[in-house]
């Protein structure tokens, strides 16, 4: 497994963690290599993805939206996956791995609560004690997922770095501190394609199924490749999952970052568009940082994109030009959220609404016959309370 995604003189990725965790990362990598080759475990994973999680998810030709946007729009319905988002692909894989490694405790960080709820779901399913770290700001705006986690039997640990402040990056810091302390029996079930090696590669492997299915399904529908695949990017797991199968094809790969209140406002989470090469949470990638190396607080209406960093493979894809990333503002995302709900009767997560908003923009330059695939990474029930006054 490659530890770095090298571009010019920069080795994106790597393992920037305290020495205490290094042996655990080697143990994880070694176990994952065995896990990949273990036919019985792979069969079990496939079975669970199919029977428990509901894969494959549909690739749906959204005719109403297509008509509105003037090209062929297909939606990859990860929102229909059990748990309500693509996160289930990753947690099923990693929870099986944790069991295989004999770990007796799961920890996770969460922003929007989707990964936390998905991990808690696994804790319930595999009967493993689970602790989820979540920023106080996110706990306030994602009550539904907090309730789910509690119902699954997980402990939700609020993270507050100063009065009223605490989001995804702080939750990751706290989860890392827990892992440093309890490294021998605890499995850190990381939620995205960031973090130290092997997480970016491993989580990508578990999410690749999205793109693999898209490819098969679009050939079944249209017998040709799409013009573009579009996904939202926080840490970037649903995007890398959707993109990876198309890396060698003539298909545009477009990532929608959290533009928040606009790049110039300084209130956003656009690590690629507005960030620079930086070391954060175990890897060298892109992040929002100042000249002194301090990490900025990110901002987004969507908790899942409210993160100042991004996975190292995205930094690599951005630098090589293979994928292109655009900021999408809160306002654009809300419009897209409403549009999809009203045209198709599908309520996307606010995160996924960023991808839809980018598709709306991109469609302006498309021909009627062009195919755009949007990864609807999750469903929007969790966001209804938050956007109540905007509807």
């Amino acid at each position, binding site marked *: 497994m490659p530890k770095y995604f090298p571009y010019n003189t920069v080795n994106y990725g790597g393992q920037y*963690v305290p020495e205490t965790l290094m042996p*655990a990362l080697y143990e994880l990598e070694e176990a994952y290599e065995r896990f990949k080759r273990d036919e019985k475990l792979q069969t079990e994973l496939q079975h669970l993805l199919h029977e428990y999680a509901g894969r494959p998810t549909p690739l749906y030709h959204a005719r109403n939206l297509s008509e509105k946007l003037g090209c062929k729009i297909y939606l990859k319905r990860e929102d229909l996956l059990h748990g309500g988002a693509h996160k289930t692909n990753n947690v099923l894989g990693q929870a099986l791995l944790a069991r295989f490694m004999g770990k007796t405790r799961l920890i996770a960080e969460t922003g929007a609560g989707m990964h936390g709820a998905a991990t808690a779901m696994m804790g319930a399913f595999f009967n493993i004690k689970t602790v989820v770290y979540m920023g106080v700001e996110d706990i306030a705006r994602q009550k539904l997922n907090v309730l789910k986690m509690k119902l699954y039997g997980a402990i939700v640990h609020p993270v507050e*770095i100063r009065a009223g402040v605490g989001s995804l*990056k702080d939750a990751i810091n706290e989860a890392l501190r827990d892992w440093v302390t309890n490294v021998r029996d605890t499995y850190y079930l990381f939620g995205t394609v960031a973090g130290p090696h092997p997480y970016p590669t491993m989580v990508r492997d578990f999410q690749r199924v999205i793109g693999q299915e898209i490819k098969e399904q679009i050939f079944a529908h249209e017998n040709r490749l799409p013009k573009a695949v579009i996904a939202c990017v926080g840490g970037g797991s649903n995007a890398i999952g959707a993109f990876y199968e198309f890396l060698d094809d003539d298909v545009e790969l477009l990532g929608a970052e959290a533009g928040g209140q606009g790049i110039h406002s300084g209130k956003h989470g656009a690590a690629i568009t507005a960030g620079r090469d930086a*070391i954060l949470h175990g890897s060298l990638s892109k992040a929002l*940082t100042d000249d002194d*190396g301090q990490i900025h607080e990110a901002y987004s209406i969507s908790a899942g994109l409210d993160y100042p960093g991004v996975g190292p493979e995205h930094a690599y894809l951005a630098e090589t030009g293979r994928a292109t990333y655009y900021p999408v503002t809160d306002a654009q995302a809300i419009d897209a959220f409403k549009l999809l709900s009203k045209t198709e009767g599908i309520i996307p997560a606010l995160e996924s609404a960023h991808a839809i908003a980018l598709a709306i923009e991109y469609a302006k330059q498309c021909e009627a016959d062009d195919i755009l695939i949007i990864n609807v990474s999750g469903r929007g029930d969790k966001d209804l309370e938050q956007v109540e006054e905007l509807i």
Partner: protein
Amino acid sequence: MSNVKIYPMTLITGLVPGYPTPELSLETAKTLHKSGADILELSASFSEPIADGPTLQLAHQKVLSSNFSKKDAFALYKKIKDETRAPLFLIEYANVIYQIGFEEYYKKAAGAGINYILVPDAPLEESAPFAESARAEGIAHIFMIAPTTNDERIKMIVHKAKKHTDPFPTFLYLVSVTGVTGSRKNVSDETIAFIKRVRSTTDIPLIVGFGISAREHIQALINAGADGAVTCSPIIDIAHNLKEKPEQMQNTIARYITSLA
């Protein structure tokens, strides 16, 4: 480069530069040095201090919200050096060095009188640019060893660290327990066994940190073969509790350090 004699027991005492204020942290440095500290540890502030417990997190937060910049920090290190002439041991997270630029950063550190630098989130695998840039400026890059580090890995770390024994004095920083910085009640048998395990592989001085706050702790570490100890969080706690009473703060810190030596 001052030559530090790490014998028979080296006491490293920590502070967070800029906390509670730049002036008070300078006073604290002077107090620590006068009270018997051999080396002053400067725990530089970073917004994402993943290796630090609540005491240091809080101090880092306060320092950053006071707009204390890295430029201010280097100026303060220089003042501490000028006023104490003590060997200075700086802890800096990787992204700070990365953003300022390796060459530039270590040049500034050397100019401010820093003798040792440890980067808590740059393990052996990522250490090369840090260690090489440090070496070029006459600064010793300090490697960490943790209780989870196996013998084979200890050998690799010792091998790298040895590159710094000549011409620089160096030491290995042993993390006493799996976990983050902060006070703990006692020194466990596991910590003792860990020190003995590392001691058997090298004669490089071993300095033990994390959780040390009493003379008995240090005695137990020395008996196990360590050459010294680091204490930091208790000093920050005193500074925090007495931040409105600077004189009492310094007296209490002095008493604490004297009680360890």
